[in-house]
């Protein structure tokens, strides 16, 4: 994890991400103050995600603790070129939050989670670093351009922890329709955000 800035093929590394990688290197070598740095930087976002998904302050704290400990133990497994450290960390938070919500639904089988999300789930966010911080308003505006049913499908999955099959059941919609709403919704969101990035 010592690549100089900008050398990862196909991906521009921002200064913020380069700093995060340095922190992750220190975490991998067992430096507690580095974990503190990472926590200070992302605690609000991590907790906001966990709280939004679980709706329970205690559970959200447990999730965040679990996620940062996961990052602490698996920093060495962070894979170069697979998205920023921020994306990696927050995807751990998201997955743990979803697990926590599903655990409260006794009929739902839980996936066998690894300590960190598999590399295939930590997808490259090519313009995440280029765009810097897209304003919350911009993301909300982009979400608002989706059709109601597309937004519902995406939000029930991402924030509600429901599977596609469960969303189909709950909304009384054929499974194929749910899949296509999610796909078209994500593509539309991508289009909107790419435009937003081009017009700061």
């Amino acid at each position, binding site marked *: 994890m010592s690549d100089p800035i900008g050398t990862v093929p196909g991906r521009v590394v921002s200064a913020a991400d380069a700093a995060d990688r340095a922190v992750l290197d220190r975490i991998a070598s067992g430096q*507690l103050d580095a974990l503190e740095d990472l926590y200070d930087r992302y605690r609000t976002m991590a907790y906001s995600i966990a709280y939004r998904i679980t709706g329970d302050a205690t559970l*959200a704290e447990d999730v965040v603790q679990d996620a940062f400990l996961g990052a602490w133990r698996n920093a060495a497994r962070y894979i170069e070129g697979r998205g920023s450290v921020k994306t990696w960390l927050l995807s751990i938070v998201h997955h743990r939050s979803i697990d926590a919500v599903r655990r409260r639904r006794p009929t739902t089988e839980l996936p066998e989670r690894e300590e960190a999300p598999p590399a*295939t789930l930590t997808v490259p966010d090519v313009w995440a670093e280029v765009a810097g911080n897209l304003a*919350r308003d911009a993301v909300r505006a982009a979400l608002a351009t989706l059709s109601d049913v597309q937004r519902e499908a995406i939000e029930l999955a991402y924030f509600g922890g429901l599977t596609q099959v469960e969303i189909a059941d709950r909304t009384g919609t054929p499974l194929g329709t749910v899949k296509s709403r999610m796909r078209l919704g994500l593509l539309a969101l991508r289009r909107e955000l790419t435009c937003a990035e081009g017009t700061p």
Partner: protein
Amino acid sequence: MTCDEVRDLAAGFVLGALAPEDERAVRDHLETCPESHSEIAELGGVVPYLAESIEPVEPAAGLKARILAAAAADLETRPRGASTESGSAPVVPFPVGRAPASTRGIAPSGWVLRIAAVLAVVVLGGWNLLLQGQLRDAQAYDEGVAAVLEVASRPGSQAAILADPDGDGPRGIAAVAADGSVVIAMRDLPATAGTEVYEAWVIGGDGVPVPIGDFAVGADGVAVFTADATPASAGVTLALTREPAPGATAPTLPIVSAGVATSPPS
């Protein structure tokens, strides 16, 4: 799973919305497939932005200390040189055995107070790593103990040994910080079922139990409970009861485990 099936499930996959067996199958396929499956990146790249739309909420101030304490405990469990265990170090016993009949209920017994004092000395003496070492067989409990020790070592904090008033049942340790936050680490708790929970109570000088929160326990019998801004203060009794559902306003007897918070001897 075929490439077409993976494409069909791609949106669900990047949103974490697949059934576990499908998620596994997609993941396995992606790890071995020669195709690039660019749809995963195309759809998944946008997912992190969903989190940006969330209204920011700050976590409780104590969470950072808990995480760092747990990480410190984790560090202690990692393999390292043989010099860490001397074998001749003093042993801090956990309370086992039957308490005198007169201690039935929530009243503190003398030995509980003595052990709490021993614990406090251990905390102040910086032997917490040794104590953790003895408890290494249960990592979850270990992390809880570390969190308790972290709070117990703060200025103005008190520590308590929690024990089963009737014998060698559930036991643990707790810390009460000067700001009223409480951390309890327990083990050997019978698992809760259905809506059952353990309720933690603070019993002050007026003898009135005040509920400070509840928690469920799994098959490992371990629980780490934290509560902020409770009415707990110096010399308070901490007690646990098993309740049929969350929200109890009066304890269902018997007391499962209890102890008195005491200050370290000066």
